[in-house]
């Protein structure tokens, strides 16, 4: 399936300058976001609530209600076609087939009036020329693959008979039922408790290795990024502020916001004083500052930061940051600068 993609380094999905606004707000919710994913690769989009990461994912799936949402610029090339300008019918044929999505809330994401086996089988029937029986067999196979014990019995369960972790497994089974080339997971573990989180992440990783699916993992949890990510894009207030391989970004963060995020993670090894936080609040869509949107909260900001939007600039191959101060001096520490 991925043979031509393997021989050809061109990405599976290439998002370029995606710009999106809501009719109720003056600013752009997503502002000039560009990234790409290759087959088998995991891209994590990380950022705090309201930074536009989920909206980005929904717009790629064509699931944003328009209006009020409005895509004002950009393109998202997938299989040689622009997802953002695709007719409704064509989009529906791709969703659940070539690309699939896992949602945050497993407790409410399954139809309570519908046996889970039938729900998975329906997705297969929708996109594949198979019989009902074959679709049911595929549903069983998928339940097995997401390691649901006694899958045969579970096929005829209703969602309320399953725990949250089990339901998320069912959601994953449904999303992968048609071997999608791209899987978008929107905070798939946020609603689960920690032990289950680890299991689900492990499961997603294993399945991804088996199927060669490209994965976009949307999360606010840097721990998740470290666990599953190949590359990471850090979003702040609708823009990507830093992008690079997980190693590069974790070892040598170059944007002050990334630096702030890293130093606000509690550490197990050293307990020294208070946890660092980033002062201030994320600006709302209506009060976006001109220039760099992080400038009001940035300890390194100067007048020039408010003058113009800093472009995402390559610092080393595959590692880019949108800060005029980048590359930051290695010794510049976030907490030091604040104090």
């Amino acid at each position, binding site marked *: 399936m991925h043979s031509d993609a393997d021989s050809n380094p061109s990405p599976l999905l290439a998002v370029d300058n995606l710009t999106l606004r809501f009719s109720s707000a003056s600013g752009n919710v997503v502002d000039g976001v560009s990234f790409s994913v290759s087959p088998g690769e995991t891209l994590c989009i990380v950022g705090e609530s309201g930074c536009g990461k989920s909206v980005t994912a929904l717009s790629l*799936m064509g*699931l944003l209600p328009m209006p009020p949402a409005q895509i004002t610029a950009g393109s998202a090339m997938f299989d040689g076609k622009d997802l953002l300008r695709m007719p409704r019918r064509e989009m*529906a*044929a*791709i*969703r*659940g*087939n070539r690309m*699939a*999505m896992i*949602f945050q*809330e497993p407790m*409410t*994401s*399954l*139809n*309570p*009036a*519908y*046996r889970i*086996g039938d729900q998975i089988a*329906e*997705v297969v029937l*929708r*996109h594949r020329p198979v019989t009902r*029986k*074959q679709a*049911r*067999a*595929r549903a*069983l*196979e998928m339940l097995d693959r997401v390691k649901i014990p006694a899958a*045969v*019995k579970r*096929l*005829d369960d*209703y969602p309320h008979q399953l725990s949250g972790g089990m339901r998320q497994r069912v*959601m994953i089974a*449904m*999303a992968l039922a048609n071997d999608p080339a791209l899987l978008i997971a929107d905070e798939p573990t946020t609603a689960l408790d920690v032990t289950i989180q680890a299991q689900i992440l492990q499961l997603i990783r294993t399945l991804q290795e088996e199927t060669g699916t490209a994965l976009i993992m949307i999360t606010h949890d840097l721990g998740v990024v470290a666990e599953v990510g190949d590359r990471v894009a850090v979003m702040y207030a609708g823009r990507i502020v830093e992008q690079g391989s997980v190693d590069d970004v974790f070892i040598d963060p170059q944007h002050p916001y990334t630096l702030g995020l890293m130093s606000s993670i509690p550490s197990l090894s050293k307990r020294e004083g208070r946890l660092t936080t980033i002062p201030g609040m994320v600006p709302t869509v209506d009060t976006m500052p001109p220039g760099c949107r992080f400038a009001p909260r940035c300890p390194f900001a100067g007048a020039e930061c408010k003058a113009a939007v800093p472009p995402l600039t390559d610092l080393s191959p595959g590692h880019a940051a949108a800060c005029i101060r980048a590359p930051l001096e290695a010794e510049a520490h976030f907490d030091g600068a604040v104090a």
Partner: protein
Amino acid sequence: MTDVLDNEANDLLPARSGNRAWKKLKHNRSALLGLILVSFFIVAALAAPILPIADPAATSWSAIRKAPSAAHWLGTDEIGRDILSRMIWGARASLMAGVVSVIVATIIGVPLGLLSGYFGGWIDQVISRITDALLATPFLILAIALAAFLGPNLTNAMIAIGLSAMPKFVRLTRGQVLSVKTEDYVEGARAVGLADFSIISRYILPNVFAPVLVQATLTVATAIIAEASLSFLGLGQQPPDPSWGSMLNVAKNFLTQAPWMAWWPGAAIFLVVLGFNLLGDGLRDALDPREG
């Protein structure tokens, strides 16, 4: 791999899960009473042709307006017909009117409500404004007007009652759809590429079904009263076929001489309507997901 699974799947007939709603209904005494009342009338109506009762249209000049006796358990009417027999045959008209008109109301009302709630926009505007206009007219007045317009017989009465009850179903369904369609699983269904029709029929409809079922049961009671009212006014079942409403209409002329002529149809309407209301209330409790 698929072949093996195929064979395995052959043995996998959908298992029937225990019906929680039925268990709850069983433990609800008034609902059970409603169920018994309703079943009693249904059985009587269905068994009418095989019961050893007199011909409901056979007159007898020697037994005019006789009080209840061993020969005529419920007495006779003004031209000597057996009231028990007419009651049982009349139950068919009443129950049929109740059920058929509710079927008419749901078959038209529920799809309109689904369309209106799911698609919104101008479709919703058109359907909702027509519904508002119909709801602004009192139920019985609308039914009488429609029945008079269509012509007086039982079939037309059922259609008239069904059409008059329909707007309630549109509004109820629409409201339910509005809340269900924001659920994550509907978004999920869209995310796996299902078409609108599949989403409506398998994700929306089953999840709005419970309140519609309750409303339908309660509306059967209303429709039975409406049919009796139309027949009382001569717009429903036509003589000589019996109906509780038309029996009451005749009985009102003999209230002092033969009060039993009014007792039985009055009591029957009361009991069957009570039965459907108790059953509907019980269903509402049993199907309410908020109560464990």
